[in-house]
């Protein structure tokens, strides 16, 4: 799969908006902690990661959850694993 970073970010944001429909996508700060900007409980967070896993076929280890703080972190993580 060859996907530029912009397209990848757009897909990630789209999946996030499916979990939190009240989100204003253009108000998200990609560098800030996601869970400080969006009301996500642990079930929402898990569902978000599951949807990333399903869309990109990337497996996300539970031990990596702590690294996925901002949207940039998430896109970095996916980029490194998408071939």
């Amino acid at each position: 799969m060859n996907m530029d970073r912009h397209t990848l970010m757009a897909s990630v944001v789209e999946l996030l908006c499916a979990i939190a429909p009240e989100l204003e996508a253009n108000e998200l700060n990609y560098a800030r902690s996601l869970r400080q900007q969006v009301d996500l409980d642990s079930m929402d967070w898990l569902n978000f990661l599951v949807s990333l896993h399903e869309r990109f076929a990337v497996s996300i280890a539970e031990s990596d959850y702590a690294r996925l703080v901002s949207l940039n972190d998430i896109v970095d993580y996916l980029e490194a694993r998408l071939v």
Partner: protein
Amino acid sequence: MIEFKLPSLGADMEEGKLLEWHVKPGDAVKRGQVVAVVDTSKAAVDVEIWEDGVMHAILVQPGETVPVGTVLATVLAPGEAAPVVSAPVAVVAVAPVAAAIKAGPSAVVVSPVTRRPAVSPSARRRAKELGVDAENLHGTGAQGAVTLADVEAAAARQGGAVAQGLPIDRQQAMRRAIAAAMGRSKREIPHYYLSETIPMANALAWLQRRNAELPITERILPAVLQLKAVAMALKRVPQLNGFYRDDAFQPVAAVHAGVAISLRGGGLVAPALHDVAVKPLEQLMRELADLVKRARAGSLRSSEMSDPTITITNLGDQGVETVFGVIYPPQVALVGFGSVAVRPWVEGGELCARPLMIATLAADHRVTDGHLGAVFLTELRDLLQQPDSLASSSAVSGQGGKEK
């Protein structure tokens, strides 16, 4: 002839608006089948029927708001012949009158019952998102039904203002319903409160080991261990599981945990996760995920709304240390969990840092005393130190044992 009545879908419900029938006269129905969708002030609920039979007459039409207990339809028992004279016509006339008389403090404004055009499910969903009152639109679909296109056209006319979360009147109705139930709880239930700090290192390490080997779709959240531990601890103190009705406690053998779920846009619901004590953790995780999803999408079932035997609330995700809950009548207890955080702890006379969580119990003094409440919380604490016993408990819990 069986009367299919509007069930109470929670202590805060006084009436409901019939949105949709899934069956028509002549259709065979089975126990547990969803036959209608009813809107409460909190959510649209799929209402199940609890008898086998054949639908006979539909007495309440989509769009009508009627009090709890109103006969919505008549059902012929298996083998029963349809009566020659159809009496139900009279009942149709009675329902709106009853609705008009009803004026409890939490009653949502009862709109005059008139025949309104049907609204397609997708149109209704979209209308909710857009803050459009679909019931009052001029429908262009078959027999004047309001379609998705009608809703979107109406939203465009309104200036395209997209409501965030629930529309305002819906939020107000939910606020009133919660106020009525919680006000009743605080008036009628003499609450007492206990709390206990629970070391979580064992449970978290166990979960981490288990989840590390599994794909993300099969991982379990700590919330599931908490639910299971509550259900197992209730085996030891069954006096906290059941209902207080007619001046007496009615224990319930099964644990149907009402899981408090906050809704995006405000408000909360606490639908039941059924038979928590006897289900394996994997199944509980799947069902919890499904329940949260459906609660937020507004597609809960009537049995889930009406039969929780205890409520469990977890505010830990928000970083709250302790939550003392208000009991949801007619239940007699509520268990609250705060955040899991690393804090100072003393073990074997040594000060150390450990992940800890505060569990609380709010319970009804008409049924139990602090002593029993304390037995429950210490049992809960001990169970969470032995996560293996929670994982294996489903196999033996039916016989009343709690460990292998």
